[in-house]
């Protein structure tokens, strides 16, 4: 059993609890356990993308420094911090690369971190959980653990932007990624390819210009549905929220638009690996996936037996 220092970030603790609980459950099963790091703070998110404000990089560096200490307390843990959110992954990776290249910035940040008794020595790597699944665990191992193949679930992978951009933070080929596709196939689900797999979900416009998000989401969902998908799989809590919530709003406003459920990749894994349904926190979803899963006999069957 390898243990990884796991950085949750804000979303996974609030409206995406199901994503985290399923991830931790399957990570144990795959002998790559995610162990939450102590006293973590915000990853820094979009602020760190500005190039001239070093203050905004303190948050991610503090995370890396604390995770480094956490690694010492874990079993067989590599010097890696694992994230589930693609935004956290991107932010931490970019800043980590930046300080590895620029000692001057690192010195300034370390000076600021003195009062927290932290110092970072650029000896950590940032990984998205998908990278661990693909590169360390392997799809073969994942399919071995599948007890409840997702037969009948026609899943269209949706990447959004942050998993594949920018260059220094991407986890897969930005034009033709296959990490989600391979994962979906190893869980026994049917793969549905949609051309809009990285078409922007509308991102933070959900805060002030909802119409942008709704028009984006409509295109993404319709493209997947037209090609026969009955579910989407995502790897970003914001994409998940936008697509899920906007479909509900659209279903209310329009006639004939039947929404399809949005799964986090770890939720699909948990279902396929026979984990209890309640850890998915499906009640937090706007479009409840349970009717579809029941219809396909993917949940509720065991209880009957």
């Amino acid at each position, binding site marked *: 059993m390898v243990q990884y220092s796991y950085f949750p970030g804000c979303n996974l603790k609030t409206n995406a609890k199901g994503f985290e609980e399923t991830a931790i459950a399957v990570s144990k099963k795959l002998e790559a356990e995610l162990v939450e790091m102590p006293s973590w703070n915000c990853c820094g998110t979009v602020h760190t993308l500005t190039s001239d404000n070093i203050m905004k990089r303190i948050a991610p560096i503090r995370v890396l420094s604390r995770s480094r200490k956490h690694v010492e307390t874990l079993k067989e843990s590599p010097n890696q911090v694992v994230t589930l959110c693609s935004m956290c992954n991107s932010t931490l990776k970019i800043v980590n690369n930046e300080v590895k290249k620029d000692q001057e910035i690192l010195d300034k940040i370390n000076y600021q971190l003195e009062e927290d008794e932290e110092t970072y020595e650029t000896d950590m790597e940032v990984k998205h959980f998908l990278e661990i699944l693909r590169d360390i665990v392997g799809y073969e191992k994942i399919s071995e653990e599948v007890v409840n193949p997702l037969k009948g679930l026609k899943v269209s992978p949706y990447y959004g932007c942050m998993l594949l951009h920018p260059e220094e933070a991407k986890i897969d080929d930005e034009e*033709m990624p296959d990490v989600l596709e391979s994962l979906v196939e190893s869980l026994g689900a049917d793969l549905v390819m949609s*051309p809009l797999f990285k078409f922007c979900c509308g991102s933070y416009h959900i805060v002030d210009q909802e119409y942008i998000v709704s028009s984006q989401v409509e295109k993404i969902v319709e493209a997947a549905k037209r090609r026969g998908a009955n579910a989407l799989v995502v790897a970003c809590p914001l994409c998940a929220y936008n697509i899920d919530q906007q479909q509900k709003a659209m279903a209310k406003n329009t006639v004939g638009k039947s929404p399809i459920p949005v799964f986090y990749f770890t939720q699909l894994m948990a279902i396929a690996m026979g984990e209890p349904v309640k850890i998915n926190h499906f009640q937090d979803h706007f479009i409840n996936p349970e009717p579809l899963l029941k219809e396909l006999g993917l949940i509720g069957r065991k209880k009957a037996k």
Partner: protein
Amino acid sequence: MKIGVYVCECGTNIASTVDVEDLVEQAKEFPNVEVSRVYKYVCSDPGQVLIKQDIEEKQLDRIVVAACSPRMHEPTFRAVLEDMGLNPYVLEIVNIREQVSWVHNDKAKGTVKAASLLKGAVLRASLMHPLERKKVGVTPNALVIGGGIAGIQASLDLADMGFDTTLVEKTATIGGKMSQLDKTFPTLDCSQCILSPKMVDVNRHPNIDLLALSEVVEVDGYVGNFKVKIKKNPTYVLADKCTLCDDCVPVCPVIEHDEYNQGLSPRRAIYIPYPQAVPASYLIDPNSCLGIDPLICSKCKDVCGPEAIDFDMKPEIIEKEVGAIIVATGYEPYPIENIGEYGYGTIPDVISGMDFERIVSASGPTDGTIRRPSDGKVPKTVVFVHCAGSRDPSKHLPYCSKVCCMYATKHALQYKHLVHDGTAINFFIDVRTAGKDYEEFYQRAAEEDQVIYIRGKVSEVFQDGDRILVKGADTLTGETVELHADLVVLATGLMPSAGTKEIASLLNLSVGMNGFIREAHPKLKPVDTAIAGVFVAGTATGPKDIPETVSNASGAASRAAGILSQDELEIEGTVAQVDEDLCRGCGLCAEACPYSAIEIKAINKYGHALRVAFVNEAMCKGCGSCAAACLNGAINQLGYTDSQILALIGALGEE
């Protein structure tokens, strides 16, 4: 020693920023100066006469001219000295125009700078010695590397002028990329029809030795006297016995992708590249043939009546002596596999411009009916993407590939002529039609043939069922465009061919940022290279269309003939000279030399075998890199000796 100083006003070019009268007065006080004069245009005929008179009357033996750059008038004044019986190397030119008057506006300071430059030159002139110009013989043969249209034209021109010309082509036939094109813009005449007569001429010309399936592997020597080694790869078919009956092809069990048809049709392991190939001969692909080694199959040999097939043929090395070399190694299209947003070459109906040329060609895989690769259907909507790989500094080629606008327009036009109810859409950044009759051609496509032009780039291309979803922008209306197409043709850019890169490194030719060979001067010496006797033609120096390539090749041939037509060549006297007593044979100079003019040789001296540097004066360009690199001060740059340079620096350092 008597030095004459001549200061030029160059109209007002110099006189407005340098006080020339003051300069002349100051110069009179410099050591050894016999006469100092100012003149409005020293380079003019009366100006030259002035110098000549002084040389005669005052017995001057060193001349210093303060005027423009020596790149302009050094030959003029050297001729003046030679006319008067002086050695041309006792002339010194001070550049007080480009380096003083044109770059300063303070007359007082400009005069001070000019005066110290002039003083340095006078001091240096006192230390000058007459230098000798050496002569070398010339081998009146030429080597042309690359058998595309550039190499063909250059070879024909040289051969017509009577020079024995060796044309080396890497593939099995000459013709190059032009032979794959269907029609040429803007006249829409058939490419093969205008090319094949020239190919035949090459084959028949008594002065051309055509070596196909051959590569230049070694080049030694210098201008007028190159020694070249050429590796001729085996065809495994004896050309003099082969009757081109084609009996061997149907029996061959190996199926390969046909390179001539861009892999869109099959060929056998024994094949002829295409019907008009020159030399017209079958050959065997040793990578896939089952008969070469080990001998598993010999079906072709069994059916060959004239016994032309020889599985034991070996590569041979051919040695040639030539006086000039023309590099015509050409381009290759930018690989669409690099353009991820257009499907990485994985969507079968996204094809390159060259693929389309074959598909539209009557000799191509579809016999001239436009069919798409995936299912062979005739596409009803075709999108042509301009600048595919070009003008994209962040990911692909930063430059404009010049011909793509025109060939994409030509493709759209050809498509409309063949599929009348079809729709052709061109996405462009700018339509660049700089060429004779090119703009009219574009207008005709847009207006008469209803080809649709959308200004904007295609951002992404997806397979969507059996159609292709094309997403892009219309930057004139500011809207995004989404449409479904049956076929997408990428107007891929041009990049230097692998052969261009190989030959550039073999010949030590300098290449530009983008890998194309650098010309000696981009405007005034477009077919010369930095190496004397080596010329370059066609797309090896950058993207060109066919007319430009042909005139470029004729230019290179004529430049080469300028060397080949002489009995002997004069070599500049300003070369590096090694002091054998000081040299310790470390080889730093040989490393520093950009022209491979220095060799470390063992000599017998004082009863010992000593390693010393040896300068090949014919190859030395007098750049001085070796003299600067030498730690022992054992190399002197004749005309720019250490003592002369120190005298210059001394004068500049004075207050």
